[in-house]
């Protein structure tokens, strides 16, 4: 009997996880979009949510095709789909831009992560690798015609890293007891409490962890 009950509970838990409504998924993607827009570095990918939304859009488009054109709700549905597509494309484009800018450092960091906590989706990883390869090939072709001394680019010369200390605006979704901020001006550290719902300006590096866990929203 015991086992049965436990099985039931497990099943219920799974159900709860799957019961995430389309509305929640949309909100998650919108939040990820804003975070990605404002954070200096690339954030863990949200492919699951994006794929889920894309599927929703597909099935909605299928349903719409069956409706008559005069139905007043057709327009609203179409408009909503366009709005969602805008958010998704803007989100993905922001990520691609970061991958292009910080290609070498993104790939290096990605190599240290396991598959479960990868920051890039498989497609993005493929893109990054190809982009790096193409850039390398391009520089090789040019550098071949340079004096021997300059034939090779070493890693430090081609790497561009995001400035993790750049300042960001943020809103706190939960009370955080302690955030350490490094004050470069005075060479010391400050510790502050972030109240639930409060808005702040501070270096990204101080809150990077909280952004990735979804406790802090960049604005």
């Amino acid at each position: 009997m015991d086992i049965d009950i436990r099985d039931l509970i497990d099943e219920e838990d799974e159900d709860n996880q799957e019961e995430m409504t389309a509305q929640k998924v949309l909100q998650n993607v919108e939040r990820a979009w804003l975070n990605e827009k404002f954070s200096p570095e690339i954030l863990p990918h949200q492919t699951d949510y994006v794929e889920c939304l894309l599927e929703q859009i597909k099935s909605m488009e299928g349903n719409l095709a069956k409706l008559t054109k005069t139905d007043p709700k057709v327009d609203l549905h179409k408009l909503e789909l366009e709005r969602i597509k805008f958010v998704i494309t803007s989100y993905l484009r922001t990520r691609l831009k970061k991958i292009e800018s910080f290609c070498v450092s993104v790939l290096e960091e990605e190599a240290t992560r396991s598959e479960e906590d990868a920051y890039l989706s498989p497609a993005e990883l493929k893109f990054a690798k190809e982009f790096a390869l193409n850039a390398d090939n391009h520089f090789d072709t040019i550098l071949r015609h340079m004096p021997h001394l300059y034939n090779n680019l070493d890693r430090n010369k081609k790497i561009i890293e995001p400035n993790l200390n750049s300042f960001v605006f943020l809103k706190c979704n939960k009370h955080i007891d302690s955030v350490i901020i490094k004050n470069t001006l005075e060479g010391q550290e400050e510790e502050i409490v972030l109240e639930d719902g409060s808005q702040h300006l501070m270096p990204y590096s101080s809150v990077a962890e909280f952004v990735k866990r979804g406790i802090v929203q960049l604005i």
Partner: protein
Amino acid sequence: MMHPSEIEFMAENEIIQIVPTFNHAGHVHLICGSYGPFRAGLPLNVPIWVALNLRQKKTCRILAPDWMAVDKLQERLEEEKASKFFTQLPSNFYLEITQMLLTVASEDIPQGNDIKTAVKDLWDLRIAKLRSSVDLFIKEGRVQASLNHLTPMEINSVRPVFPDTLDALMTLHEHINSSDDREDSSQSSIATPSSASFSPSL
């Protein structure tokens, strides 16, 4: 970097009341939620983008939000003048919502011009406050600031200049502090996505 139109896009998700002029018995099941039923003459809540779309097709009338009235806005203005800090506003997107509603549905909102002026006064007052606090912030050399009750559009008005200035200041100070290891010529370049350029220093 956020374009003002993208903030307007976010503002369009806010909920307002409309009075439809048509009947549609069922709910409309949108991905962002279900809205309805639409009955001629009965007010209901919808996102602003739905309201604007219906209004443009002349199938509804938009009810101005409670705060969008000249006397209410004047009260806010007085409060804002009296307070040293930023006061909490009834809407996080007051400027955008006023702008959108008055553009599309100016006939539905009484005293539209006065509302526009009042909202503009409020905005000007808050932006002036924001600018002087930014000035103070940089002069005092602080690294953290509370920005409670500032709206996204207001924050965006000091971006990217303000954070970029701070970034530059911090980088300069870091270089002064670490002048010992200036010899290290192979320092990697640091950039933000918008200003990043691939420049191998040969």
